[in-house]
């Protein structure tokens, strides 16, 4: 036997199941236990940049909305810095850049308020178009799915984005672009995630 490397093995993932709300969003499960539930304010009151709303649904392979999903979002502030000691320059006080949201038990829709993130650099120093990293769990999803949300009004930056350009099938890049519209004078983006079938969302192994 050659020498052992002594690395540990990552703990295997298991589905979050239908009752994920108990642990991560207990009010949605139907009870109030914590003084503060986490993840409901992504940007905080002091964040600079454009205030936006993002809405969407998560659709299964039969075309039905998933009503027991939970998403987490991780994003830079409007200047491209993450709220992390190695995430760039300091961010505004109260800016977290992280949020979690559930799909509605009746409609399957989700929605968050945040600010539009700025440009960040990839590992080779190339600019990446503004985007939000998304992580999705639900009953029936064995390992949380990673994807990215880009913005339809950033066409030029999206066309130069190294990650979007790595997707060989050009028509699939569109699955990562949230579509901007206006409602009551405010910007709203629509981002539907399709788990399977025609127009399946691009997921990443990060």
């Amino acid at each position, binding site marked *: 036997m050659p020498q052992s490397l002594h690395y540990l093995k990552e*703990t295997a993932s*298991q589905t979050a199941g*239908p009752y994920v709300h*108990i642990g991560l969003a207990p009010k949605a499960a*139907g009870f109030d236990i914590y003084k503060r539930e*986490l993840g409901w304010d992504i940007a905080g009151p002091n964040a600079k940049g454009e205030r936006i709303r993002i809405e969407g649904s998560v659709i299964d392979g039969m075309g039905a909305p998933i009503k027991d999903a939970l998403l987490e979002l991780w994003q830079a502030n409007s200047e491209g810095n993450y709220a992390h000691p190695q995430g760039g320059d300091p961010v505004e006080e109260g800016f977290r850049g992280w949020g979690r949201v559930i799909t509605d038990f009746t409609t399957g829709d989700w929605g968050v308020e945040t600010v539009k993130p700025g440009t960040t650099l990839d590992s080779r120093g190339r600019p990446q178009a503004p985007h939000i990293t998304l992580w999705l769990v639900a009953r029936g999803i064995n390992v949380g799915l990673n994807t990215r949300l880009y913005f339809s009004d950033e066409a030029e930056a999206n066309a130069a984005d190294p*990650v979007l350009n790595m997707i060989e099938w050009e028509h699939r890049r569109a699955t990562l672009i949230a579509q901007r519209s206006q409602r009551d004078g405010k910007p709203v983006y629509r981002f539907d995630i399709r*788990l399977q079938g025609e127009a399946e969302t691009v997921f990443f192994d990060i």
Partner: protein
Amino acid sequence: MTSPEQFYQRDWSIHPPAYSPGYKTSVARSPSYSKISLDNSVGELTGPVFGHSDIDAGDNDLLTNFAQPGQSPIGERIILHGRVLDENARPVPNTLVEIWQANAGGRYRHKKDTYLAPIDPNFGGCGRTITDETGAFAFRTVKPGAYPWRNFVNNWRPAHIHVSVFGSGFAQRLITQCYFQGDPLIPICPIVQTIPDPDAIEQLTATLDLNATIPLDTVAYKFDIVLRGRRSTLFENRLEGN
């Protein structure tokens, strides 16, 4: 500012495949196409930072965090403790660990759970804590009960506690389930058996830890969690084509 180190690529041989027909719900919820592999950029290498202002000291005690004063939930009192480590066996300090579970009768406090076992008025079923400098965490709770679920006509979930962990970068984000040593339902559970590697299932099984029990009071189980490790820079990386 130095950029955080990249993560080791995930070893998919220990994780359940998305499409696992024995777990029927996965069939319509599993992507068909291959995932696109990404070099980690700062958005994957960093992740949210949590502190003690986010949680309260008693949040990790499920025996008291929802109970009426002077009362406690029904069931076998247990301590669930362990460490969060990475693949390099280094501790993962100051990371958020959240758990949720059924009560001792196998019933969840959730508006969508209709199992006939009763709700326990003194049990919420969730807890959270932040690991210390050595990566250690501990919860006090009751051992959850097994319960039936609709998959095949007669499927039972082994006793389990759901566990959510962050790590220091978003690419480490993990949700899993902790099972208990000796449970005969483990080998016949379709959700457990989505995991192809028997050793990986053993790694999800908490071990009775007599040394950590409180005599005449609470039994203890040990459950360590391993997150992805980061590369260390031995030599500068010269990227392909550069």
